């Protein structure tokens, strides 16, 4: 799986899921209409999105997706065309939600992040775990390595519930052998 495309440089830390998808957009049963409201709670994001209409890779600072568990945050980014998020760390629930929906959560070090924040486009090779950073005036083209969770990467193609479904006999056997409330 390759994710390649323009960068959305969101140079902020602690972007919580209330900012990615404000609570008022969670009301109702339709979750297919989130593209227009993605990141709408982030100050200045409207101008940023307008300047990067075809962005496919969101680059942000630490603790991206912290806060509320709403999976809408992941759905909204995907519906907006974002296929991968690169940050120095993620909120746990957001990261799980990303894997479960095929949004690639890439964690890299602080020193590499600056280069990515200034890139126009990025190419992420999900299988190999590498990001190709295009050459700039002061630096040649290079690759940054990253690691995905060895278990959850298998869910990127949409296999989480199928995986859980396959475990049901084991879960039932475990329950039969253990004391539960």
């Amino acid at each position, binding site marked *: 799986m390759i994710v390649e495309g323009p960068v959305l440089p969101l140079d*902020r*830390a*602690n972007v*919580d899921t*209330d*900012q990615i998808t*404000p*609570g*008022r957009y*969670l*009301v*109702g*049963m339709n*979750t297919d209409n989130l593209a227009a409201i993605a990141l709408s*709670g982030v*100050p200045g994001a409207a101008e940023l999105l307008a300047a990067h209409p075809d962005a496919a890779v969101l680059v942000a600072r*630490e*603790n991206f997706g*912290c*806060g*509320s*568990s*709403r*999976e809408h945050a*992941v759905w909204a980014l995907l519906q907006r065309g974002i296929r991968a998020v690169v940050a120095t*760390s993620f*909120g*746990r*629930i*957001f990261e*799980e*939600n990303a894997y*479960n*929906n095929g949004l690639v959560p890439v964690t890299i070090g602080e020193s590499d992040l600056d280069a990515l924040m200034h890139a126009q486009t990025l190419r992420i090779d999900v299988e190999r775990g590498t990001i190709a950073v295009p050459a700039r005036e002061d630096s040649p083209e290079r690759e940054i390595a990253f690691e995905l*969770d*060895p*278990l*959850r990467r298998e869910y990127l193609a949409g296999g*989480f*519930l199928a*995986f*859980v*479904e396959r*475990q*049901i006999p*084991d*879960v*039932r056997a*475990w*329950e039969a052998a*253990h004391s*539960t*409330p």
Partner: protein
Amino acid sequence: MSERGTYFDKVWDRRVVQRLPGDSALLFADRVVLYELLGAKAALDIEERFGGRLYDPQRIVAVTDHIAPAKDGDSAQQAQALRLWARRNGVRMYDIGEGGICHVVVGERGYVTPGTTVCCSDSHTCTLGAFGAIALGAGTTAIEGAMLGGALVVKRPKVMRVQVNGRLASGATAKDLALKVSQMLGFRGGVGYVLEYAGEAIEALTMEQRLTLCNMAIEAGATTGIIAADATTYDYLAAAGVDVTPDDALRADADARYDATLEIDASALGPMISWGTNPGESVPIDDAVPADADPAALAYMGLTAGQKLRGLAIDQAFIGSCTNARLSDLRAAAEVFRGRHVSVPTIVTPGSERVRRAAEREGLHEVFQDAGALWTHSTCGACCGLSMGVLAPQMRCASSSNRNFPGRMGEGGRVHLAAPVVVAASAVLGRLATADELEPALTEVHA
């Protein structure tokens, strides 16, 4: 890593169905909690994709809380979808008039017991770690998995011991301790960790105080919080009508190894207040806004570095939420309101309908209403800014809730998190304040 011997590890080891790659495991899901806003879709998805197969409907509990009662057609659809689904599937649902905020309802009714797991599509599920259980907030898909397969896929976190020494000072509450932990760790200092609270001060906390403390573990980015079950836990559960035999083997080893330790002196704590746009941006109420404060947070909050917080004028006060709306919270707030009057619009929202009725039996609702506060039914209400008590841009609110994120209680609204007694005193004076600033109450004068 499995040989650390922490309390968390003891619970974890008891719930591992299967070890998985990458230090993850399949954990048995003893309880799954759903609510209308983020649960209805999960419920219907399972029906659509798996023919409604549930691992065990008796392990699932449903409530309406975030927008309860419904405020419009869209929110009514969500509540009704969950309601009808629960009925079709034999799932126990606590609806308006009976239920309340999910974490409060599930706790007070004894659904969570030591050594088990509970999950819910809400990040404040960590509240329930107060029962000595692994309590996990999760997304829609993970909750669907728990309903379908009776299990959760969880990456084993590191364990941080939050060692709280001494006893809480008389002017401090569990909320001040929670905000202190947030301040010390910062908004992301707990990422990758579970916070295991221990020490003399923790042992002395009531269950309601423990629930308040664990509620804010997520606000440091932690996977969850947990407190070892003890006599306090088992007594509480017995009073809730749950017969659980205390389990002496369920305890941290004396030589347990923690991945990190945070030490706090409870006796040095006083009232805390948040100044910024995440709970880590909190300080003792007599401190000023930090000199190195994030300029974006200052701009949003309409503050400047070095500015004093005590005395800052507010426009609204809110006492409620899964953090601080249990009976003891309401009693403490009522003591401040008794014989006094609010000077800004003030909303008091009990954590559950059980809490509301207990409070009313004690006459607390009369105290709030005599003071000019609005006493409501139980709901998440103003905390999530979705149905009532919403702030307008630049309105400043003292709140006993847990999140001061930009836009949380209304677009542009400014939230200062504090203990219920601090919020109550601030409501009376119309500015951030503590109860010791108040003139003697009218009743005291008459006496």
